[in-house]
């Protein structure tokens, strides 16, 4: 049963990723990416990480992708690559190198890693929100606070970057 779910989600995830990269319309790309995120969230569930699956769907597939769609709509940039390719060899070389990277990745995945999987029973409890929050607010408290400051900085940065300076000068 699990194997079937895994294979299905894997195919959906890879297919959605390919669709994201290949589609000429940016809006379609974003939608494919959301599909991919959801598929990966299912995998998180299979991996006994229900909390991360929820975060994946709400934050990634929800908030972040909405932001993407919002910007695409705002800029009217859904029409893809305009004009001719200025560096012709970029595309084939990129694909070729990607293939090399994939080969290396597969090699590492099957030959390089010598992980001994822990028994499933031991892994059952780790994904629970209670477990995670207990660790997050004790062992990882400082990184957690740093992240909150980072987010604050990002907010301020975004505001500064998108403000229209021309108008400010006129206001003065």
């Amino acid at each position: 049963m699990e194997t079937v779910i895994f294979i299905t989600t894997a195919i959906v995830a890879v297919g959605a990723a390919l669709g994201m990269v290949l589609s000429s319309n940016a809006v379609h790309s974003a939608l494919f990416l959301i599909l991919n995120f959801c598929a990966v969230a299912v995998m998180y569930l299979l991996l006994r990480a229900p909390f991360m699956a929820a975060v994946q769907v709400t934050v990634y597939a929800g908030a972040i992708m909405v932001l993407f769609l919002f910007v695409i709509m705002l800029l009217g940039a859904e029409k893809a690559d305009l004009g001719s390719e200025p560096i012709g060899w970029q595309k084939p070389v990129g694909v070729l190198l990607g293939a090399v990277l994939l080969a290396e990745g597969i090699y590492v995945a099957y030959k390089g890693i010598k992980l001994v999987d822990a028994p499933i029973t031991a892994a059952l409890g780790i994904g629970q929100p209670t477990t995670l929050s207990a660790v997050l607010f004790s062992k990882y408290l400082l990184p957690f606070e740093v992240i909150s400051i980072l987010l604050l900085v990002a907010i301020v940065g975004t505001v500064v970057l998108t403000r229209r300076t021309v108008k400010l000068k006129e206001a003065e």
Partner: protein
Amino acid sequence: MQDFIWLVPLLPLLGVIINTIRGTLAVRQRHTAAHVGDHGHADHGHHDHHNAARIPGWIASAMVIGAFVLTLATFFSLLGQPARTAAGENGRFFDVTYWSWMAVGNFSVPFGFLIDQLSIVMMLLVTGVGSLIHIYAIGYMSHDQRPTRFFVYLNLFIVAMLMLVMGNNFLMLFLGWEGVGLCSFLLIGFWFEQRDPPWASTKAFVVNRIGDFGLLMAMFAIWTLTRDVQGNPLHSLMFREVLAEQHVQTLQFTQTAFLGSQYTAAGAIALMLLLGVTGKSAQIPLFVWLPDAMAGPTPVSALIHAATMVTAGVYLIIRTHAIFQLSPSVMNFAAGLGAATAFVAATIAIGQYDIKKVLAFSTVSQLGYMVAAVAMGGYVAGLFHLLTHGIFKALLFLGSGAVIHGFGDEQDMRKMGGLKSKMPRTFWTYLIGTLALAGIFPLAGFWSKDEIIGYAYDNDHRLLAVVLIISSMLTAFYMARQVTMVFLGEQRDTSIHAHESAPIMIWPLILLAIGAVVAGLINLPGLHSLETWLAPVLNEPVAEPAEFHLGLAGLTLVLALASGWLGYYYYSRNARRIKANERDPLYRWGGDFYTILEDKWGFDSAYDLAIVKPYKAIAGFANRIFDARIIDGIVNGAGWVVNQASRGLRVLQSGYVRSYALMFLIGVIAVLGYFVLR
């Protein structure tokens, strides 16, 4: 006195410091004054300048006189001590070490002074004659642009010379040796805006380096080869350790191979020391720098190139006589070299027209006497001649300076003549110096020169004695020629107004003239005061005074008088034939032979052909071909390669973010590939 001996070199050093600071401040002040542009008191300022110009001279002179007084006091305190201790050792010396100068591993050299009978005599000469020359120079340099600089150099020279004679080890000696070489270089080239002095100073410096190389090698050899009585390396440069009899003897038994021949260590060291002597004391083949050194101011010629620095080589031989004595062959070679120098230089002096060049070759010739004397083993005779020569040759140089100064800075003797009436005091003192140099009874030169000849005669160096007697005749001849050409007859170039020099220049002449008369007293036959005084240093168990040969002395005197009279007679008779820019009357007799004398036996041209020209060719090749093509080629080539590589790599900086990402990816793949392939 030995507690204050450090004051002797310190006083001139203080003079250097004071004058340097004053000079620097004055220059700054002048700049400020020039900035303000106060032209209203130009005349007043000029007058001030002349008085101010004498201040550095007085400061410098006072320092040297102070050093002289201290040296004199030290001398008398040494005199007050018994000549030999109860154990029969030298009682009149002290060896003070102030601090460790340098200590690296097992190499350690102290900074200290060895004051014994030999060094105190040299110190008296350096500071005594030095004081008079300093005072004279106040007058001589009063019209010069840079009197402060001059006296700084002159004082620095005194410091270095004192280091040379006072040092208690070879490195201290070398410090002084190089110091006087530097000061000589600076002072020969003092008038650097003129054409000749810079070249002359460079020549002196380079030629001296050859000799210094010998001294350095000798020092290295002494450091490594000297053994103590157990046969272990001594590793010392201290005179009193290295030259102690039981240590120096070991040099006799060490063999060294050099250029395929075997030498004893003593022979090799003596030979290298001799090279140093030929450089500093202007012996064949390295004497060529000394005549050119006359391009410097005349007080410099008197102090450095007649009285003190050039005698450093003689001092070195006497100081290291323990090593020389172990190698009779080197001693004989040196004696022959000295005699040959005495003869050759005396002949060249006949062919010179420049008043100072004559004296310069005379100095070379007299140095030949000294070297010959000390190399024959006549250390006392050599030192005696060194002292008397230091006095009367300084007198002659200062006299020639007075002539030049009072004759419109002209040095060509063919333009002079009849100056006796114009500058009588200069003439009489010059005449005394001449007679002393020519060895006329009873002046100083008679006694000292005769002692050398007598010593040669006594010690089976008959050939050398003959050569030296002939040289002495030549000396009388060229000095008579000079005095006749300069002072007697009629003034040939009447366009120059000749006048007597200022009293400040005449008084040193008079004092030196008195010295030239009485200096023979210090080692009169029968008294042998110098002989007795030096005996403990020379490790001679009983002083054996050289015998005075009445017949030999009489013969030398008669010959000198005869050739002197000949010179006077010939040049008075032929006075009309002496004309500026024309050759000497003697040319009619000597012909080509006289040309050789004028040409200084071809030494300069030979060196020019054998060394200078090839060297310049090599330097030219190095400059034009090697440096311009190969070195510059490498340098420019490196730049070109970088430039071209940058041009190539610039393509990568395309501005396209995706290209950068591609490079990034290549890096990622490479790193991952490393883990894959590991």
